[in-house]
Structures are given as structure tokens and as C-alpha cells.
């Protein structure tokens, strides 16, 4: 090691205290079978930018897991604009500069408590503070984000047409309608553009699924409402609301799900007997992620697309920690 930066020197000292190895240990494996300890990984991740790319400044924030930091602090509350995917980064920056000093002390305590699984009270909930906090110099946002943007795959919305509907009548007069009262108490209607499906209930309530964006969902819902209007019903368009958004993306490296469920037990459910993916219930934002060994990630449960982006930016550094095969 070059041993240039004070960070490395400090962490070397801490590593010496630990009798497990020379590198800072994050946790001790709970199962003796665990061959996939991401210890090397994190070390590499922490030092990677310094050792292997001496020319670059340590601006690659995405490889460092900082999601345990509190999301919103007094000072940067105003800066929080929920639209931007960079929201997370701004919060991190605010917190980093404040915690830089206290970081060293937090570090020692987390190192000497190797099998902690309880998140600290201030944890954002995205992951417990098993990762030692890196007292790096604060950097400007620029783009420490992962560089990957989740693609929206499905939007579910509802709207109230505010009039009673005769479903039999609709099924008779509309080409694109399906009605099987014994199977389901709604008309299933489809339009080609935007390619979507609607469930239309006799109460006048309607669910619209399949759109790839909020605007497309609204446009589609309006078209369904127009069809119902043309069929002679006094349909209105009230309380249109996006109920759920699903996105997906690919981090482009395989993930050791067994390791992830060990370090993030409180949020993860990995049952290969049931389902090949790991179900991660993020607390903030309240999003459910399905993480697969291939590196593909599905994010669902969002009411706004910023939640999907934020959730992915939260999980990406965690996943990068499990990138390396043992």
C-alpha cells in the first residue's frame, strides 16, 4: 500500500486491533458455511479509488456505502427536492461534512462490534451501519450516482368515472372489451396506443395498467373514459391517481444474494426454496426491490418515479459491495 492518505493509515491501525485479519472487518459470518464474505470487496471498494487509480480524485461515491447516514438534517432540509435523483447525493454531502470529525470515532465503535445487526437510531433504514463510515473529504455532487437509470416498466393508476355502468352493455358494444362475470366482476378493456389494459367496474371505478409512464397512463385512462362516454354513459374523469410504479434495471454484475441477506437481514428475505430473487424492503423510500443473482433489479411500490430512482441509488452501493466473487 502506498499508505499516502491518512484514511489508509487510520484504517490500518484499526485493522491491527482486530484479530481476524489485517483489513477492517465488517462483521463475523453467522454461518460457518459462508464462503462469500465481502470483506475483500469492501476493502477494495474503499481503497480502490485510491490504490488503483492514483490519478483520480476519490470522487466515486457510489462505491461507498453511506446509506446509513440520516437522510434529512436540519441544514439541508430546504435543499431536498423530491424530483431529482440527485436528492440523495445532496443529503449525503450535507451529512458527510458534519460527520467527518465524528466519523473516526464511529468507525472504531463499529469495528469493535463485529456482529452488530441492529441499525443505529439515525440510520436511514436502507442498511445497518456495518460499514465503517469513511471520513472522506466532502465532494460536490457532480455525478456520484450509479450512472444507471431504472426504466419504468409498468404504471398502475385508478380513476373514477363517477357513474354507474352497465358492463354487459359495454361488452356488447365495444370491440376491445372482455366480460366474464363468473370469473371476474369487471370488463377488461384494451387499447393499442398507449398499449394498456383497463379494468372497468360497474361502480364506475376504473383501473388502468401497462403504461410505461405517468403521462401515458393518464392519456390511456382518458381514452378509456372516452370509449365509455361514446357508449352513452355520462363518464367523468375524477381523482386520477397513480397507485403503483414498477421499474427495472441491470447493475451488470452478479450478486451474492446469500451475503446480502446476511448483512441486511432486517430488510431482506431470501428464500431460494420459494423464489430465486432476494426481496428487499427498503424503508426510505418505501420501495420493495427484487434483486436477482444476475444483477437485474426490479423496483416496485412507488407512487412517484423519484422514489424508484432514489431506491436504486440507495441499493447500488450496497450491491457493489457484493460484486466480487470470493
Amino acid at each position, binding site marked *: 500500500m502506498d499508505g499516502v492518505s491518512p484514511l489508509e493509515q487510520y484504517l490500518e491501525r484499526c485493522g491491527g486491533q482486530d484479530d481476524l485479519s489485517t483489513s477492517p472487518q465488517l462483521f463475523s459470518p*453467522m*454461518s*460457518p*458455511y459462508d*464462503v462469500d464474505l465481502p470483506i475483500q470487496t469492501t476493502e477494495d471498494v474503499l481503497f480502490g479509488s485510491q490504490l*488503483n*487509480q492514483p490519478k483520480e480524485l476519490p470522487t466515486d461515491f457510489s*462505491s461507498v456505502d453511506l446509506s446509513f447516514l440520516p437522510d434529512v438534517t436540519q441544514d439541508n432540509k430546504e435543499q431536498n427536492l423530491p424530483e431529482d435523483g440527485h436528492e440523495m447525493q445532496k443529503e449525503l454531502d450535507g451529512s458527510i461534512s458534519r460527520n467527518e470529525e465524528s466519523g473516526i470515532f464511529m468507525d472504531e465503535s463499529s469495528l469493535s462490534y463485529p456482529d452488530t*445487526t441492529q441499525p443505529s437510531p439515525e440510520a436511514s433504514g436502507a442498511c445497518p451501519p456495518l460499514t465503517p463510515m469513511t471520513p472522506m473529504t466532502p465532494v460536490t455532487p457532480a455525478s456520484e450516482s450509479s450512472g444507471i437509470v431504472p*426504466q*419504468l416498466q409498468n404504471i398502475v393508476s385508478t380513476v373514477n368515472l363517477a357513474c354507474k355502468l352497465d358492463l*354487459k352493455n359495454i361488452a*356488447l*358494444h*365495444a*370491440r*376491445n372489451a372482455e366480460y366474464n362475470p363468473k370469473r371476474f366482476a369487471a370488463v377488461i378493456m384494451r*387499447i393499442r396506443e*398507449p398499449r394498456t389494459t383497463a379494468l372497468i367496474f360497474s361502480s364506475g371505478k376504473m383501473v388502468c395498467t401497462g403504461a*410505461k*409512464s*405517468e*403521462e*401515458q*397512463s*393518464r*392519456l390511456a385512462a*382518458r*381514452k378509456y373514459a*372516452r*370509449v365509455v362516454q*361514446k*357508449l352513452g354513459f355520462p363518464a367523468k374523469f375524477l381523482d386520477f391517481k397513480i397507485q403503483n410504479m414498477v421499474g427495472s434495471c441491470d447493475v*451488470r*454484475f*452478479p*450478486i*451474492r*444474494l*446469500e451475503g446480502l*441477506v*446476511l448483512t441486511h*437481514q*432486517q430488510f431482506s*428475505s*431470501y*428464500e*431460494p*426454496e*420459494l423464489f430465486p*430473487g432476494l426481496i428487499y*424492503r427498503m424503508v426510505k423510500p418505501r420501495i420493495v426491490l427484487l434483486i*436477482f*443473482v*444476475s*444483477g437485474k433489479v426490479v423496483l416496485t411500490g412507488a407512487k412517484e418515479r423519484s422514489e424508484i430512482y432514489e431506491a436504486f441509488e440507495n441499493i447500488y452501493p450496497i450491491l457493489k459491495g457484493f*460484486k*466480487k*466473487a*470470493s
Partner: protein
Amino acid sequence: EVSYSQSTGQKEQLSRCLQRGIRRVQDLCKVLQLPRVFEETAVSYFQRALQHPSFHLVSLEKKELLAGCCVFVTCRQHNWPVTMGTICSLLYAKQELFASVYLSLQKELELSVPALSLADLVKTHLNSFRLFQRAADVPARFVEDKEKMVARTMQIVELASETWLVTGRHPVPIVTAAAFLSWQSLQPAARLTCTLARFCKVAGVDLPPPAHLRLKELLEILLRMASQLAWLRVFNVDKKTVVKHIGDLLQHRIFLLKNAFCLEDGEEQRAAAPGEGSPGSPPAAGGAAQEEGCSSEGKRQHEGGRRPLLPPCLINPRKRLRTAAPSPSDSAITGDEPISDREIEQYLRGPEEIRAFRKAKAW
């Protein structure tokens, strides 16, 4: 002075449903021969769950499954290897229903359930193999030493885990395939001709369908490793004969894995084989760069060439229509566009059509 309700425990009276459930939990613990403390934990989970609104009013069938789930969670929290399959068979339950009750339980009670320990599963699963004693239906050449078999199976399962064959897959078929390979390799001369199906039949265990695929994948890994063992290169080792050398391959597996596969770690690869792969690319460029380097190298030397160490789903990606990224015109949609009458009318039936439809459907 003691009140009537206190002395007769009236306040502690449990509902019949709760009593039945607790009995079920206790029975399961007895059948599985679990330590006493497990029973107490499982019962307390069950009581908590039943009070929860999501479980209070579910069907009796689900409540029974809930009892099984509580036992299951308790076992897993104590790293006691029990599979859902076992609990389901004890309860004669449908696995999908069990799964949904289990996931709800985990979510509502916010339970953290550690992952199943494969090492422990190997020991438990092998216990049910009837191969360790001579019997009327177990021929002599099938009998094997239990310790040896457990040890070797464990090593093969670890190998499978290191080479991405375990993540995301059902655990039991992997153990079955590994047990078969370990059993074969301990006496290859006598056992090479035996099939996996026959092996399971004699051993008295089920043959889960994925076990064949796991076996195939394991053999592929072993063959690649064999290609790196100097003294094996002389023989033309194929997927049958590689079994004879499993002992050696396992002994040197760390070295062989490093040489047989491109690991994603840029540093390791550089240390192991300077000049090969893509030495210039920094690790931050991502595993993708390393994979590219490896796959191009793999193409150059097809036979016994190194391939990247990746999960099978990434090595053989199933052809799937990739949903195109939203086109610029899609992104420009505001949702407020005017909707033409013509567009809507295409979805409406004309009068002749309605007449014909009415006749056909006889509304």
C-alpha cells in the same frame, strides 16, 4: 384473598383456536425433535401472529400453516436446518399457500430470518440416505462410509456455491447432485455406471427434477478444473471419467478455480496471468470490462479456454425480447393530448356487428 378469576386462571383462558394452534406447534416440535426452547419461541410467535389483524380472521387451514411457519422461522433463527418442503409435507400443505403465509408472517411480525445454512442441510439431508449400512435392498457396492461421504458432499456443495451454482436455486437438488457425485467418486470403478435416478432409488430419497441440471453444471465446472491439472491433460477427461478425479480436483480447488476461470477481480487476474485479460482496465470500470476481456479470450481459445466465473443465467442468457428504451416520441407525451373521435370509434362495434354478435352470443 385471591379472586375466583385469578385462582382458576379464567383471565388466562385461551381461545380454542389458539389452543389448537399451540398444540399443533408443540406436535411439530416433537416430531422434528427440536430442543425445548424452540417450542417456547415458536408458541410465542404463534400467539403474536394470531393477534395480528392479518391473521386473526384467516381460514383454519391458513392458521395451521401459520403454526408450521412459526416453527420454521424458529428453526431458521437458530440455524437449525429444516426446509419448507419438510414442514409442508408434515402439514400436508400446498407449498404456494405455505409460502404466502410465511411471507406475510415475516412481513407483519418484522421477523428477520437468517438464510438456510447449506452445510447443516447437507448433514441433515444425508441422514435420510439409506446408504450407510448393508441391507436387503442395498447392494454391497452401494454402501459407503457416512463420514467420508458427508465430508466430500460438503466440499462439492461449497464448490458449487463458489461457482455460482447455488445462488437463487433450490438447495435440496444441489445437495442431491453433490451427494451422488461424492458417492460415485469414492468408488468410481464400481459406481460409474450407476445413474442418478438409480442412486436415489436405492438410497431411498426423492429425486428432485432440478438435480439433473445441477449435476450437469457441476460436471462442467469439474471438467474445466480438470483441464488445469497438468497430469490430467494427458487423459481425455470427459464428464464420465472426471468423476474418478474428483478427490484431486477438490484438494486443489482453490488453485484450479483461479486458473480455470476468469475471476472478476482485476487485481487477482493480473497477478495470476499478466498480459492476459484486460490489464489496463481499472476495477472501477466494472466487472463488465473483465468479462469482455475474458469472453474475447474464451473465443480465441475455445477448447479449455477460460470462461468468466458467472452464474449460469448470465453464461447462457435466455433470448428475451428486450423492452426498447422509451423512444423520444414516447417521452414527449404529456397525457393531455387531444383524443380524436376516429381513434375512439375504432373500438366501437357497428350496428351490423352488434346484431351478429347478439345472435351468436344469445345474450
